[in-house]
């Protein structure tokens, strides 16, 4: 976990969530740029989880180790699941699906920042 990276993810997921709400409000299915953006956010989230696990492996001991590991894994699945779910039926609601996942990643990232303290 690197705090600036986490805040970057918070900003990126906020954009992805707002983008999803916007296309839903405009009654459009998510466009190509929007889907690529979501994929890009996922890559950054993956980098963060890898750094997190590297930290745990090299001796960092957070107060709530099991919970922290759960978040580092859980945070990875939301966007891919939403991507699949948003694309199997492409309507305005696809944008809401992406927004839900993005907001979930945002909330989980903030929680990870709180969890990432030594025991």
């Amino acid at each position, binding site marked *: 976990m690197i705090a600036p990276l986490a805040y970057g993810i918070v900003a990126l997921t906020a954009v992805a969530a707002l983008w999803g709400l916007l296309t839903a409000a405009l009654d459009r299915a998510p466009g190509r740029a929007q889907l690529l953006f979501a994929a890009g956010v996922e890559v950054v989230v993956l980098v963060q989880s890898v750094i997190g696990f590297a930290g745990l492996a090299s001796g960092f001991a957070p107060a709530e180790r*099991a*919970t922290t590991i*759960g978040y580092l894994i*859980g945070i990875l*699945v*939301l966007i891919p*699941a*939403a991507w699949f*779910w*948003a694309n199997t*039926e492409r*309507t305005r*609601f*696809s944008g*809401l*699906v992406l927004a*839900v*996942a993005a907001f*979930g990643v945002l909330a989980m990232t903030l929680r990870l920042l709180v969890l990432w303290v030594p025991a």
Partner: protein
Amino acid sequence: MSTSSGAGRALIAVYGLFALAATARAAVQVSTKFPEAPLAYLLSALAGVVYLVATFTLARDTPLARKTALVAITVELVGVLTVGTLSVVDPQAFPRATVWSAYGIGYGFVPLILPVLGLLWLRRSRPAVEAG
């Protein structure tokens, strides 16, 4: 109309998010600190199962899945109201440990709103042939 179509897809996404959050949380609680608050952690696990069942049955959308979803979401509503009330009346018994504590205050009260939306959605998406 199908439960897994249109607005239902957004609803299922929220259910999926809560299924993940509640199940993961319960798994950590039950496996690492179960004796601390067995009742709260068992309810945590129940919440996780209910969200999982609701997610998959809403997405599956067969007559049986629809009935199962109705049961799961009703349990969910009763659960959040019961645990919510108990956790406010007797905080000792529920040390802020389940998604349903204080009506889901730790999750922006979404756990309280979600079953209501779920039941409304089951009603609205009901097939036309199924009268009553």
